[in-house]
């Protein structure tokens, strides 16, 4: 099995450890990976802020870059949601038929990480060990755009030593929302405070998710408040084994 990793712009810059975890995890599962050095951004930030033409240029770039890939795996649910939900409209409005055809051919081969593991590879037990109390934050795009359902929980349930701590109001937004966290910083913070109450109440040591953008928001607030909980991308939990330890 071969796949191409689209790491996403913010993971590349801010969370390289998530990328390293995906590489370690997939290679352990026997997947050969490639990484296209020309990749940058899926265009979500521009699209969601109202910069459609700019988002289109990045969307087009993504399709051109990956059109020959056997499959693409992306460890960010909101970027996958951007590709699935927004590319069609962008290409309908601004693209030509050739681009639309290329995209239609590529789309079924684009996977979010937990989809790739469960739907494509057919594994739930990835051989991980993470002896900690963990709560899973189901990001909005994971729940309502990708319909990930119980995939993340199934993956977590097979991790040695891991205790899942159920999160109340799990489908409620953490308040990040991309540039929403800047344009409406106060409301965003109020939403985050509500979410943090639920997270802290779980008694977990770690809060995990399939989207580092939510975790950047929650983790930043947790750090500011000296709360005793850490944020970690699900890939990093799944990459951790007894033999190899945690991702550095």
């Amino acid at each position, binding site marked *: 099995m071969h796949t191409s990793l689209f790491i996403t712009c913010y993971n590349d810059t801010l969370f390289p450890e998530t990328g390293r975890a995906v590489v370690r995890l997939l290679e352990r599962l026997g997947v050969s990976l490639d990484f296209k050095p020309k990749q940058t951004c899926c265009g979500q930030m521009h699209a969601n802020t109202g910069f*459609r033409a700019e988002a289109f240029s990045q969307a087009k770039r993504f399709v051109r870059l990956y059109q020959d890939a056997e499959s693409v795996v992306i460890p960010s649910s909101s970027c996958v949601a951007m590709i699935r939900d927004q590319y069609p409209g962008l290409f309908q409005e601004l693209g030509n038929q050739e681009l639309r055809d290329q995209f239609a051919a590529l789309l079924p081969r684009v996977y979010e990480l937990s989809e790739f593991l469960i739907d494509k590879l057919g594994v739930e037990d990835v051989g991980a060990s993470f002896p900690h109390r963990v709560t899973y934050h189901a990001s909005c795009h994971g729940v309502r755009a990708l319909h990930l359902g119980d995939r993340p929980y199934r993956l977590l349930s097979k991790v040695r030593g891991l205790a899942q701590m159920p999160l109340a109001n799990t489908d409620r937004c953490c308040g990040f929302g991309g540039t929403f966290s800047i344009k409406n910083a106060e409301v965003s913070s109020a939403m985050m405070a509500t979410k943090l109450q639920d997270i802290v109440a779980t008694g977990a040591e770690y809060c995990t998710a399939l989207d580092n953008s939510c975790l950047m928001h929650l983790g*930043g607030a947790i750090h500011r408040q000296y709360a005793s909980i850490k944020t970690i991308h699900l890939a990093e939990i799944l990459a951790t084994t007894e033999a190899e330890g945690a991702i550095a």
Partner: protein
Amino acid sequence: MSNTPTSHPILDPALAPTFPVAALNVLRNPQLRLNVAHATDIIQAKRGRLVAEKKDWQQLRTAASGIRAHVLENLGAYLEKFEERCTAAGGVVHWAADAAEARQIILEILQEEKASEVIKIKTMTSAEIQLNPFLEAAGIKAFETDLAEIILQLGKDEPSHIVVPALHVNRSQVREIFARTMGLPNLSDDPHALTDAARHYLRRKFLDIPTAISGANFLVAETGSVAIVESEGNGRMCLTLPRTLITLAGIEKILPRFQDLEVMLQILARSATGERMNPYNSLWTGVTHGDGPERFHVILLDNGRSGILSRPVERQTLKCIRCAACMNACPVYRQTGGHAYGSVYPGPIGAILTPQLAQMHHAQSLPYASSLCGACYEVCPVKINIPEVLIDLRAQVTNQERRRLNRFLDPMYLGMKIANLVFARAWLFHAAQTLGRIGLRLFTGKDGWIHALPSLGSRWTMTRDLRGLPNQTFHDWYATRAKESK
């Protein structure tokens, strides 16, 4: 604690402050936030239970969405059919292009009736055209008869929700308003005592005032009928006791056939109040001599709606049946309540409807008043893809910005343009990462975290830290590793 729920909310999109500014008022009012969160949680839970018991809910949604979409594609023909059938049944149909025309039509009818007072059923459309202050200036006193609207009218407050307009007011605040304005100093906050006080206040009005104004939930083209659903029966009083009834309805309220009500009434009650059926469903067709009002006027209001109809993505906004499920589900509304939206239509539907009704001249901050979490779309009984419309409206706002000479002075605009240049070329992206890492070192503390940033960044660091940028990007690590393994 102040007994005034809010400080004079402004629900005029042309005058209201921007959403982030208006939201601050509420965020700093713990009682108000508690009231809103408590009320929306209760309605949400009721809705959830009643939707879950309906095994064909998704089919119902599909049917409702289909009916509404079909109406919008054939709106002109259905409106004409409604006019014809309603007129044949003895109603008088008026067409109003905008709020001013609608107000004038209503005023002229009332003057013809020599009315100095009028009773009203809860109608958000009348609030949209700011009818009450207009009538008051013309010497006509409008009395609200919906319990929530009475609370707001007597408390000199404004609606914060389209189904439960006084959702932000709690019981002890209602007691205070009634005690003060009805002259009942010993009133208790027992729900029975409060409704009893309202009943006494209302009975005289129902018996004395022979003219009523209503909105409409649905207009049935096939029969020329009007439908109103409500929970209290006060609306039923307004619809049956007066001599003259004036109904104000947006042009999108049409349903093609009488039997479409079967779908719409099921889906509306469950979505709006979490009930299997609304307690009062009133349906009438024109006038019937000796039974109910003898004169019946319908005003069909456009007020920006046909403009929305002409845009393919935004058109779905008009499918809305005003159930408010979106605001009850919205995590933003849960924090801010309705007044922050500066419009009679708050919440996610308001965030898309208000700027469009204002023809994008006002309320440009509303399309951004959402984290795009999608909870609204998930609960919408007529499948309005609110996030999709929000994003499209944001693009319209950006296109307005593109024409502004000083646009590059806006750090968000400038940042977006630069980011676009950078993302178009990998080498430039990598250079920007390096520059960013070096630049941010100036702000990174000894603990490796950034606690304060200037400019737009301060909007992040006001409540959140940011981990300092790692020394090695992922693509660097990957390239190094590939080289080493060769």
